[in-house]
């Protein structure tokens, strides 16, 4: 703390210095508590619910990838379902044709999707707005076709059945919980990597490119390099999510990766908060549960309810749940800090 020649008494200064936890500390505490809760959750829930939550986490990782690209870097993608499929099929082909153990398929899936994303990102540099949307849309629509065509590898329309992994016996937990923890680990890793990336220089560069490409270039940011890398990183995340989905579901088929999946990712991303990390988790929850809810409510027109849910979320929170509530939370914390400095210090 800086020394100041203040007329305030030294006792008060001392009190200020040591009062309360900082905002940072509160955030850290909250996050840790959440992680602990999430780690303990599978032991309180049935196998089926554990499976559902695993799917939520997988979708969250996929949506996180999309957030990096569309939220932080401003490049719209309607094709992430295709990259999800590439990750899933990489895992499936390695497991089915080459008997690679499931955990060893994740790095190749990540690498292949990264490379594919970069290759995709290069021509994508030429396009923006609706044109970029079309290019990525082509990826989403072409993927099932290509998957069906190369049926020697992919099993064609019949798909590929995969052996479900067995948990290590020493741990004494069943398969569903084991997969939950693996997915949780990957999700936490993904969040950490994304946070490091996005809260640092790279993130600032990406956002600068999104908001003002010309100014960014004028300031010396290599827009081409960052945009392409953003693409590759984004597809890496989504590809890994796809690989996990293949392991958890135990089956891949072209039908699993239609255009609707790509659109779901975009919807989840927007609803969660496109330029946030936490929003990815909200997005995952939305994608997994809202269609089910819509189905339970209406037999006749469940998709209509899903559509209505989308509309209502966008009206109420156009920046997404985390995008709208996040700043609200920060403001509330600042207000609490102003009123009760003992609670939240500086």
């Amino acid at each position: 703390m800086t020394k100041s020649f203040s007329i305030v008494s030294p006792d008060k200064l001392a009190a200020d210095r040591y009062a309360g936890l900082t905002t940072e500390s509160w955030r850290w505490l909250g996050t840790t508590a959440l992680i602990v809760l999430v780690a303990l959750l599978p032991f309180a829930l049935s196998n089926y619910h554990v499976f559902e939550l695993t799917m939520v986490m997988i979708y969250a990782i996929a949506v996180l990838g999309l957030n990096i690209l569309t939220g932080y870097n401003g490049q719209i993608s309607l094709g992430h379902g295709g990259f999800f499929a590439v990750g899933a099929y990489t895992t499936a082909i390695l497991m089915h044709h080459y008997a690679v153990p499931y955990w060893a398929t994740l790095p190749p899936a990540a690498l292949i999707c990264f490379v594919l994303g970069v290759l995709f990102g290069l021509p994508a540099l030429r396009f923006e707005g609706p044109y970029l949307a079309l290019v990525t849309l082509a990826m989403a629509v072409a993927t099932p076709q290509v998957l069906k065509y190369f049926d020697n590898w992919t099993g064609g329309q019949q798909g590929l059945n995969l052996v479900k992994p067995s948990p290590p016996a020493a741990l004494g937990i069943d398969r569903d919980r084991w997969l939950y923890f693996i997915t949780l680990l990957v999700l936490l890793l993904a969040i950490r990597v994304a946070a490091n990336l996005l809260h640092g220089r790279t993130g600032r560069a990406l956002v600068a490119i999104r908001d003002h490409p010309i100014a960014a270039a004028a300031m010396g940011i290599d827009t081409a390099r960052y945009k392409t890398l953003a693409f590759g990183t984004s597809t890496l995340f989504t590809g890994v999510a796809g690989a996990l989905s293949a392991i958890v579901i135990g089956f891949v088929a072209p039908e699993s990766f239609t255009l609707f999946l790509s659109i779901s990712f975009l919807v989840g991303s927007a609803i969660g908060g496109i330029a946030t990390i936490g929003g990815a988790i909200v997005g995952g929850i939305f994608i997994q549960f809202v269609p089910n809810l819509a189905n339970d409510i209406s037999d006749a027109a469940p998709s209509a309810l899903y559509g209505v849910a989308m509309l209502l979320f966008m009206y109420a929170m156009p920046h997404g749940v985390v995008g709208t509530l996040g700043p609200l939370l920060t403001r509330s914390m600042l207000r609490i800090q102003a009123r009760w400095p003992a609670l939240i210090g500086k």
Partner: protein
Amino acid sequence: MHELLQQIFSGLAAGAVYASVALALVMIYRATDLVNFAQGEMAMFSTYIAWSLVTVGLPFWAAFLITLVASFLGGMAIERIIIRPVENAPVLAAVIVTIGLGLIFNSLAGWFYSYTVQDFPSPFPDRPLFGALMTTQELGVVGVTLVMLTLLFLFFRFTKTGLAMRAAAQNPESARLCGIPVGRMLAIGWGLAAAIGATAGIMVAPVLFLDPYMMSGVLLYAFAGALLGGISSPVGALVGGVIVGVTENLVGTYLIPTQLKLTVALALIILVLVFRPNGLFGTAIVRRV
């Protein structure tokens, strides 16, 4: 040779279908700077309305006109009620809203009218033309699309409202300062697009047969065609749609097996766009810093 001609003509007919929906997409884009992902579903829903009218006994052209008016009003209402709340929100929010809208229309159509295929009457007599290269129905689609295009062109070029709409889309702030009721322009834009979509749907239904998924395949090609031609150009929409139709047919017949037709067709379109990123007739966007 005869087969090649037939493929080209089939492509023209399909292309006219894509072009008519592309026109509606371009209309909304010019009026609101937004791609309307619900365009196909709105057109399909309008077609169902027309079908209901025809089924209760109205003559075709009466049903057509009533549907046009209803669609115009409906489009305006949608803009005012559904799109307005996200007008000042990030573009993505508006995109999500149009996606949701599409889902709603599709689901409602399935609910009200079931998913079974319906027969739709054609205003044109069923006669082959040019030695079985094209039917009158297909020619009718081409003809109506051309008429719509001409009307649109005249509207934007020569009417005050058209000019006002272009201004409102390009620079809402300045337009307001000039006294243009921007909100009303947007609504009219959507209304017109809905009417165009309805026309497209009604013309197309006798060819494609009416079911709630009639337009889902068309939308993708229409989108590609609109972008190929230049998203802000109505002429581009027509040319783009036709090129997409013909290319798709020729590629699928002569180049590669039909199992990869969609993939290759899209790849070709993207290739063209790489060399002309704003489409064939689109204008390059110049950004001032």
